[in-house]
């Protein structure tokens, strides 16, 4: 937990192959995340970003390679078992529980901590402080929230897990720039508080601003890795993912 441990590798994805039926989605992907670090996984559509996250979360199981969390192998575990080891998830496409109320959705984030109701209640108040909009709508069915509100909801839900590793899949998807900025502000705050984050993004500019290090995926292969600053400065990355050359 302390200075020494923070530098240690928390998550190690090691030469992982993932198949969907006959289709191979990941080819020998290796990624590591150190304590307190924010790591971004970038890439175009269908490059395998979400699949990488899913393999960490146990939603798909690699046919080759290994995944270790805090030194223990997790690539054969079920999703709830992995969540129980302190992982939080913000799934792709948000996935709120549409007919349940906003409050209930948030509480579900704290499901693994259900035996500690006092702290859960305190944390819920915290979330409502960060996202006052959610407080106003706390009894409303989550399916009726706007896309941006839903994104806040799932961020709050994941935070209530009080994870030691947070996996986020494209939090900017389908949001207006104003909302995206808000989301990233929240994430920056969590980073400052020391949370370890593995984030998948298409919006490379924003992700590289937040991240310490990043990996670039293409057709299921890691084609680049480096510190966020290195990658942000790389011209080929800029051309391919930052979209600046097209605009210019």
């Amino acid at each position, binding site marked *: 937990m302390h200075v020494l441990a923070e530098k240690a590798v928390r998550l190690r994805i090691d030469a992982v192959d993932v198949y969907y039926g006959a289709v191979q989605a990941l080819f020998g992907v290796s990624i590591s995340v150190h304590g307190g670090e924010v790591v971004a996984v970038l890439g175009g559509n269908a490059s395998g970003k979400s699949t990488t996250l899913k393999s960490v979360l146990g939603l798909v199981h690699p046919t080759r390679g290994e995944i270790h969390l805090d030194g223990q192998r997790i690539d054969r575990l079920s999703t709830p078992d992995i969540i129980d080891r302190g992982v939080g998830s913000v799934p792709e496409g948000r996935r709120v*529980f549409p007919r349940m109320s906003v409050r209930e959705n948030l509480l579900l984030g704290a499901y693994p901590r259900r035996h500690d109701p006092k702290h859960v209640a305190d944390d819920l108040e915290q979330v409502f402080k960060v996202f006052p909009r959610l407080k106003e709508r706390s009894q409303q069915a989550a399916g009726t929230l706007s896309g941006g509100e839903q994104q806040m909801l799932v961020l709050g839900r994941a935070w209530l897990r009080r994870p030691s590793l947070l996996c986020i899949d494209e939090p900017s998807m389908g949001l207006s720039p104003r909302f995206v900025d808000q989301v990233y502000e929240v994430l920056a705050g969590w980073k400052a508080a020391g949370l370890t984050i593995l984030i998948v993004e298409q919006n490379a500019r924003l992700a590289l601003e937040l991240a310490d290090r990043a990996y670039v995926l293409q057709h299921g292969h890691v084609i680049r890795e480096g510190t966020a600053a290195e990658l942000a400065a790389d011209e080929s990355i800029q051309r391919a993912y930052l979209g600046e050359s097209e605009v210019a």
Partner: protein
Amino acid sequence: MELLFSQILNGLVIGQVYALIALGFTLVFGVANIINFAQGALFMLGAFLAFSGIAWFGLPLVPAALISVVLVAALGAVLERVVLRPLSGASAITPLLSTLAISMILDQAAEMIWTPEPQSFPSPLAESRIFIGDAFVTGTDAAIFGFGLLTAIGLMILLSRTWLGRALRATSEDRDAAAQMGIRTDSMRQYSFALAGALGALSGIFVALYFQSVFPQMGLPFALKGFAAALLGGLTSIPGAVVGGVVLGVAETLASGYLGDNYRDVVAFALLLLLLMFRPQGLLGDHRLEALGGASAAAGAAPSTSLLASAGGAAVRQRVIALPAWGFIVLGAALAPLPFLSSGGYLLQAVSYGLIFALLSASVSLVSGSIGILSIGHSAFFGIGAYAVAILARFYAWPAEASLIAAIVITSFVAMLAALPLLRLSGHTVALGTLAIGQIGYLVFLNWDTMTRGPLGIPNVPAPVLVLFDNIRLVRLPQKYWLVLALVSLGLFLAERFVGSEIGRVWRAIREDRLAAHTAGVPVRRYILTAFAVSGALAGLAGGLLAYLQTVVSPESFTVELSIVTVIMAVLGGLGNMTGAAVAGFALTILPELLRGFSDWRLIVYGLILLVVLRLRPQGLLGAR
């Protein structure tokens, strides 16, 4: 006035029983998205286990009931684990069918263990009663009422206030997302089955107390009412299930009291259809979310109206084996010499039935597969065809050509009419809607004395006379066989042509995504009605042939059991696959004949074969298309 009061009181009591059964469905449907047809069997087992506790082991009622509830809950959990969980990746229809197979096995096993006969189940509370004028309430009624309300309230508290309840609901709304919250979704499904089993057992015991008897066939009729109540209430709403049960109970009691007991079920199921027409989401269902494209759309998955789609959203596909349309004509020609190869009539009779059911199964597969509206009501259409021919041929001496065409036209028309209330429904709701249609059909056959002769049926249907062929009378079995063979081949040929045509493609597009088809400018309603018209025509032809072959037409041939069997055929063949439907229809009609050697075990073996096939080929023997 006094009578009205008594009747409403009567309705409230039986309605509470329905509500308890409906709660079991709602729970399983809500969490596991499975319509659990085995709920009726669990209900029956609950009653019988309590009976055995009392009669065999001399236990008092309450401990016997408790033991029974626990045992049935455990059985529910075991069934989920052993039979349903392995199918969790398959399309929604596969587990539904498995629950049917389970209920077949359990019902038959109960007949073997406890004999098929009703047995006495005395209620210690029956003696105590209170009179309010002419109306009365017995102690049993009060117990049913009290426990029913307590259970409903308890469930509501459980689901809305506890971690378990929230986890159950989250699992029902989005399994993958729930797993990412750390919820063990498999256990949640298992809990829901166990809870539903417990509720089933409890309601079974109450029904036994109410009627002071238990009987192995008690499952299905009450299960049907439970479905109807759950659907009335909104299928996933706990208070909805209670309200649905009570509304159903009161409505049918009033029908029974003021129209006659034979109108009870007609009114119950007609009420259901009517409600579905105007309020497809049920009495207490949530309309707002439907507007968003249903729960799954709100969750980000593609809105699918199809039961063929797998739980994960993407349909698992198998290789499809299918004959071209002309293949049915060739096959028909190949089967023509059969009468020369066999001496006795047994084979010909059995094969003729097999052919008729091949056609009926294709008819079911056409709506259930191509257009994605699972039909559990085709017995009604089959029956209309049969009655049309029986009446026209016997009382009006029509020739076969005319009476069969009339059967086809009438059935086709009725099928279109019947589809009207279904147009706004999709998924499981529409399946239960067709169930109501099938029940209404049966009840009309049974009650429309002046037309159908009611329970007496129409015997002595004359042999078919073909005016176009020199007035030849097809008296002998081989001749009837040839008639059946020729028309079934032709019917299958036409069915395959439809399915393979542009119309068939549009049907499948509607099945995959009704909303998208609609926005793409497809006149969805017209296509659905066309599908019902074609399917009705095929079912009408099959029914007409049945009337000629069997020479007796009576209501018991057109019960919900028949509808269930034909759905099994259609699914087992591969939905939407006419070849598969025909093969499965034929094979499953012959199979019980082949299994006669198993005597009492026959239906159990049949159910086990079904389970195994569903496990090995979840998309049907020849693949769904």
